[in-house]
Structures are given as C-alpha cells and as structure tokens.
C-alpha cells in the first residue's frame, strides 16, 4: 500500500471508533412526518363552475408578484422591475 493509502485506511478506521451520538446532534433538519402522506384524498373544497381556462392562467400570470416569506430573503436579488 502507498503511504497515502495507509493514511486513508487509518483515517477511515479511526472514524469507526468515534463517539456517535455527539456527531449527529443538531446536524439534521427534521422535515416532515406522516401528516404529509395524503395527497390522493378527495379534496374538492372550492369546486364551483367558475371558469378556469388556459387563457385565464396565461393572461394573469404577470399580475401578481411573489408575496410571502421571500420578503425575508435579501441581498443578491435581482430587482423585479
């Protein structure tokens, strides 16, 4: 084995002895649990006979601007207009 390879082997072997719990703490963002598992449920709440055509969607795409948590994301941002 080359010297590099020996160094890599011992670094990997040393990793196996490291205490585990301390490493993992605070490292992960919990994202979502089982509450998100139901997209094929029958959600029809706002169904009415109001029109929704291709033309509607295209015509008003530019009317609205993003308005949400993006207001908290600043810097390096292109200006909208």
């Amino acid at each position, binding site marked *: 084995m080359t010297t590099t*390879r020996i160094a*890599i*082997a*011992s*670094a*990997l*072997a*040393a*990793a*196996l*002895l*490291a205490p*585990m719990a301390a*490493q*993992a703490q605070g*490292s*992960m*963002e*919990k*994202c*979502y*649990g*089982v509450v*998100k598992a139901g*997209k*094929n449920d029958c*959600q*029809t709440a*706002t*169904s*009415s*006979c*109001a*029109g*929704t*055509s*291709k*033309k*509607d*969607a*295209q015509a*008003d*795409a*530019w009317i*609205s*601007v*993003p*308005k*949400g*948590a*993006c207001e*908290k*994301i*600043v*810097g*390096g*941002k*292109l*200006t*909208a207009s």
Partner: protein
Amino acid sequence: MPLALRELQAAFAVHVVGGERADLAGAVMGDSMSADARLRIYRHHVAYSLGSALAATFGTVHVLVGEAFLRRLVQSFIGQGLPVQPVLTEYGADFPAFVAGYEPAASLPYLADIARLDWALNVAFHSPAGRRLAAADLAAIAPERLPSLSLAVPEGATLIGSRYPLDRIWNASQPGAPADTVDLGQGRADLLVLRRSGDAAFIVLAVGEAAFVAALIDGKSLEGAAEQASHADPSFDLSTAFARLLSLEAFAALQQGAEGEG
C-alpha cells in the same frame, strides 16, 4: 349522432385542461344550469386538485411566494404537463426545471433550487427506510481494505448543491420561523436529503463532505472519494467527515459482495 366513448373522453380531456370542444357541450344535458356551467365544475376541480397536490409537495416554494402567486405558477405548470400516473406524490418531478424558466419568478433566483429541495424531500419521504450502514458493520472489515470499499447513499436520497444558502432559506420558511432575514450573500449550500425512520430530513454538508458524497454516488471507492474531497477542500478531514456521515446514517447498508478489491 352521439360521440363514441373514445371521442367523448378525448373531448373531455381537452376540456378539463382549459381547451374548447364545442361538441362536448352538445353531449351534456343542460337545463336551468347550462351544460357549459356543469362542465366547468370538472375543469375547475382538475385544476384545483392538481394545484393543491403541487402546493403540498412544494411547500417551501408555496410559503416563499404566497398563495396567489403559487396558484398561477402551478396552473402554468399543469398546462405544460399533467401527471402520467395517478399517484400525486409522484407528480412534479419536472416542476423545479419549470420554475427555473418561469419568468414571473425571475426575481427569486433561488426558487428553482428550493423546488429541487422540496422535491428531494418528497422523494426521500416516500422511499423505503432500508437498512443503514453502521460503524459496527465496517469494524469486521480489515482496515487496509476500507479504502477500496464503495458505499451507496440510501434509496431515495439526493445530494443538492446550490449557489444559494438553501438551508437558511428553508429554515426561514418554516412555520414559526423568526422574522430574521436571510442574506443570499451567505453563499452556497450542499445538502444531502434522505429518509429517516419517521420522516425525511437534510444534512448540511461542508464543501469537502459534499465532494466526498458526490464521488461515492458516482461509484468511486472511499479512497477515490477522499482524494476528490481533498481536492475540493484542502482542509478536508476524512476521519471526522466519515465519522459524522456514519453517525447520521447517510449510507445504505452494504450489499453482499460490495467490498471491492484494488
């Protein structure tokens, strides 16, 4: 002459995504409520339900742009491509690319990467948990053979690299997040998204760690990955990084015969 069922379904398919088929209204019984009005209920439902599914899958995009903008964004996307199978959690793989090219969102250059993160979390969540590699599994292997080992990330895991601080943007978009701003100037983020036992999660990786994981995903051995990581970040500490990734259960358990030689 009534429409044959094949023609009727073809006409209905055009109608529900917003197209016009005059022959369809003629096939529908109207009374004080017109055939057109009745047909529009179905059109509205298709748009609403597919839009709601996308809004749920791309929850962080939703929070970032708000309800009104999101509804228009998803409607435009649905107009370009309906699901090709009926499972709604599997609908939207092309949405991040669509967001990247969506002109009205050009002022939010990070939005497409956030959509990739949302999608990766969704994929991970619906993937089997699978057994993970533990340090103890490797302890049985002679140390000199470790460098030639190939490791895989768990099924459904995705490595995402972005020019933008996706983890901070994601955190700022969570319910109850503080009003603090996120500065895009904080730079790039590399995230490993993976299934855990009860949910999906992401790990924020340092530059060297990300190069290490990317090389392993490409099929390189631990030795090759370590070299790639040192190249990406000269201060990369293999032992610390490997211990951290193992403790986070970032690798799938070894398959039989996965220990290569050479």
